[in-house]
């Protein structure tokens, strides 16, 4: 007992003891820093790999009391289905006669007006580096019969389906559903919110114009007519995408632009309603779970189920990260999130059956009854999550640490380098005067930060210039040639670093070491901050930057330096040759204000260029 007490409270000065203890702890930490770093990296990457595991995550549930999903009898019947069919015939007629956007919008507006619902159209023009983008939206506002109409719900369908991310497949049945729903919903008197029907032109740009006009947002490259009809604050929006003849499942598409997600309560309510009221199975995206995937026979049979589940979930997680990291919405609903409107797209996965207008009408009716019950915006449940299946999800706590661990490992690496660069072992320095005691083993040297920061700043400026050239119409008109022309100067300019003279490392810390230290610290900070705003982007950065930035190092031989540099250029600037992807990212930025393209130009590429510079600089 006394021994334990002595261990816990050693004799002597308490403060001195505390300092000793702290010193001992720090020195243990510093001695094993390499091991700690590697452990953190391994943990982080393994965690990322484990995200799709069926053992992680938990079942979805509905948190908001007011929703009460699936508790109502639906009244959508075969008569309404017949109405939808009639609307569909008209829309097919318009399509076959190659009607213009305006004719389409006018026809849809007329149908709304025939139902006695105030309706209007809105023309808009986007000007971008790729040229002009014109269209006409049609919309109608069904006023709440018994309230003041300060709140609204939106039911929308874009004229072009999300099939192939808007490859031009018309969303005829989606639009017909909206029209038939308008006909049906106006017969109810229990709507506590206005219902706004929007048939937006094209795939996503129509809705962007409509939403901007609705909220009075100005966008410099958009000329949109003001809306003639107004309603209240929009709380929820359901976007209907029904491109095929029939559908087998309803898929949930929920990612918004810039990585925003709708409140999970909305998706869970929809899932519950679709499953139990509509009898339609629900998918995340359009991924069908296959039970027959091939698994090598040498794997024990008991693991097959888990591997299949892992396989299926990893597809969903990948797709999610693909949308979220690029900041690209997975459909028209994605535009609503920027105005704090919870929205998602229900996508009728094309199939030969068994579901059609009858199912989708009932599901939408019941979902509207649920959102109609809301007394305030959706706020319970989750805004940060990854849906691995329609019934299971990962909470922020179970995925966020993976990227943070890697960011921490990078930060440790950077700080270690920074503190190391201030000292040099005395043994390697021939000094005329011998020191005394242990203190003489290390000699302090200066760390010139300003030139290093200047170097970092210039890479970011270079990124900025790169970005401004990318958004010119010259680039978009001659993309393939321009890519090469742009690549060459950006890739060769940093080679100037080869001309930096080497300094006496006994007095001044080498620039390459300082640059690497600051580069790692900066990259780590960027990743940590991004994790909360857009986890998928942070995770992608952690994968792309984590190890590459940590292993950059200068070398003696010139060819080796150039080869290393070339590898970094490939990593940091290779995307310039991804023609279609680049074009989409730029279009997203110009039309929808998706921050991905500027972020890559001004943050990601410069960070990698800095690592390349580390390799070029003298030892």
């Amino acid at each position, binding site marked *: 007992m006394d021994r334990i007490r002595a261990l816990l409270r050693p004799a002597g000065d308490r403060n001195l003891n505390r300092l000793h203890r702290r010193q001992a702890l720090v020195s243990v930490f510093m001695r094993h820093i390499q091991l700690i770093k590697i452990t953190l990296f391994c943990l982080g990457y393994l965690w990322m790999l484990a995200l799709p595991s069926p053992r992680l995550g938990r079942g979805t549930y509905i948190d908001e*009391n*007011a929703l*009460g999903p699936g*508790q*109502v009898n639906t009244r959508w019947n075969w008569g309404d289905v017949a109405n939808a069919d009639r609307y569909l015939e008209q829309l097919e007629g318009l399509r076959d006669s190659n009607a213009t956007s305006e004719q389409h919008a006018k026809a849809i507006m007329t149908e709304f007006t025939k139902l006695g619902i105030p309706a209007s159209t809105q023309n808009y023009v986007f000007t971008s580096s790729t040229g002009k983008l014109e269209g006409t939206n049609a919309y109608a506002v069904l006023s709440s019969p018994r*309230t003041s109409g300060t709140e609204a719900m939106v039911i929308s369908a874009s004229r072009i389906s999300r099939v192939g991310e808007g490859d031009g497949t018309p969303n005829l049945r989606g639009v017909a559903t909206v029209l038939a729903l308008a006909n049906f919903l106006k017969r109810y008197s229990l709507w506590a919110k206005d219902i706004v029907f929007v048939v937006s032109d094209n795939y996503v740009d129509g809705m962007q114009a409509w939403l901007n006009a609705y909220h009075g947002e100005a966008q410099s490259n958009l000329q949109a007519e003001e809306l003639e009809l107004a309603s209240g604050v929009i709380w929820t929006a359901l976007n209907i995408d029904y491109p095929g003849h029939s559908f087998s499942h309803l898929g949930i598409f929920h990612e918004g632009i810039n990585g925003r997600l709708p409140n999970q309560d909305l998706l869970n309510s929809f899932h519950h309603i679709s499953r139990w009221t509509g009898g339609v199975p629900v998918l995340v995206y359009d991924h069908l779970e296959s039970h027959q995937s091939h698994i090598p026979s040498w794997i024990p049979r008991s693991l097959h189920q888990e591997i299949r589940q892992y396989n299926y979930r990893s597809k969903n997680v990948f797709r999610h990260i693909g949308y979220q990291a690029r900041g690209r919405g997975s459909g028209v609903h994605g535009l609503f999130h920027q105005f704090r409107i919870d929205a998602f797209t229900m996508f009728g996965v094309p199939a030969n059956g068994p579901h059609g207008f009858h199912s989708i009408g009932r599901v939408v009716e019941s979902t509207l009854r649920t959102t109609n*019950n809301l007394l305030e915006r959706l706020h319970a449940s989750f805004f940060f999550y990854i849906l691995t299946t329609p019934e299971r999800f990962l909470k922020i706590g179970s995925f966020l640490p993976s990227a943070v661990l890697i960011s921490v490992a990078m930060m440790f690496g950077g700080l270690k380098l920074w503190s190391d660069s201030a000292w040099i072992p005395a043994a390697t320095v021939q000094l005329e005067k011998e020191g005394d005691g242990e203190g003489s083993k290390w000699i302090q040297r200066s760390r010139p930060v300003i030139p290093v920061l200047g170097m970092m700043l210039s890479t970011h400026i270079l990124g900025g210039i790169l970005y401004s050239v990318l958004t010119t119409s010259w680039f978009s008109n001659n993309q393939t040639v321009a890519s090469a022309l742009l690549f060459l100067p950006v890739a060769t300019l940093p080679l100037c670093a080869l001309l930096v003279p080497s300094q006496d490392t006994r007095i001044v810390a080498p620039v390459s070491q300082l640059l690497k230290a600051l580069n790692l610290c900066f990259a780590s900070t960027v990743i940590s901050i991004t994790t909360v705003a857009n986890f998928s982007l942070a995770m992608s950065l952690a994968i792309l930057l984590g190890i590459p930035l940590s292993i950059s190092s200068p070398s003696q031989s010139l060819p080796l330096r150039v080869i290393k540099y070339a590898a970094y250029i490939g990593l940091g600037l290779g995307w310039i040759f991804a023609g279609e992807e680049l074009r989409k990212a730029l279009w997203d930025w110009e039309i929808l204000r998706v921050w991905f393209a500027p972020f890559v130009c001004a943050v990601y590429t410069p960070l990698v260029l800095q690592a390349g510079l580390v390799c070029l600089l003298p030892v």
Partner: protein
Amino acid sequence: MLVSLPHLLLFLFSWTWGTLAATPSHEEVVGNFFSKNGTPGSTSNHTNNWAVLVCSSRYWFNYRHMANALGMYRTVKRLGIPDSNIILMLADDAACNARNSFPGSVYANPGRGLDLYGDNIEVDYRGYEVTVENFIRVLTGRMEPSVPRSKRLLSDAHSNIFVYMTGHGGNEFLKFQDNEEISAFDIADAFEQMYQKKRYNEILFMIDTCQANTMYSKFYSPNILATGSAEIDQNSYSYENDPDLGVSVIDRFTHYVLEYMERINKTSHESMADLFAYYDPAKIHSNPGVRSDLFHRPLSEVRITDFLGGVAHAEVDTNTNARTEMDGAWAWERLGGARVKAPRVPAEDPDVAKDTPKARQWRDARAWGGVLLVGALVGWVGWRK
């Protein structure tokens, strides 16, 4: 001088009447008569009934709580408590809610057989008036002078009060409209104040909420019988959902209590013990509780109509002391609710007057005097003829 026969008879009659009247006073006879309430079998000696019905929730999805309170309202009204003796506190945003597919109606059954909102509803505290403060003011009677009588609990020492509460609650608290909570201590202290101010004879406290039984655990005033829907750490569940309304319409505990009450009428002799025996935890999905340690009558002798019925009895006030005490209480109230320690009343009924020997002698003397006077008068009249 002959005394005529009729006069003699009259004399004899008056004499016997006087002596008979002298032994048990006729006030006592009447008092005994009323203390038995006129209805044989009941042991209560209250003279008026009050009900305080509180629905502490608001919002559409809490429809069932409003239906709970309205169901109780209908029952106590049917059993004879008039609107003037019912304080109904209700958020009242269900019947005229824009989401109600049957506007102006509140139903407690999925079949929508009975419209609880009807055409004769008197909500005393509505919407944002349903607060903890107002509830406690109603119980304790500490009101602004401007508050109308219809919003006051004008009970006295002979009142049996039925207090029903429903809403969302937890361990020792009940939420009022997502805004504030009342704790079990608050209600216990309010009841104690009522007791000290002689605002009740007996209280039946009934509550339907999650962990309801914790709400009466802090009571310490006598003559309170309490019952709740669920034990600590238990939820109280809704009974059924109406698919046309899209919400649950009533809670289980209240549903089964009301179901039982439908068998009761004003003349029913069913006791509280019968009601408590009717509780079925398997049906209610939680364990209802009863607290009777503060209550001094055996539950099998306590009629349900003692609390939920409006049995009107006359009060026989024989004791001048009682009157002054009551006047004192009234004056105290008019002082504006200053905290004066009211004199504690003995637990037994204060109204049965205790005769002192001196008073009895005086009464006897008076009776004999009366007989003599009447006899003399009659004799004198007969003599003059």
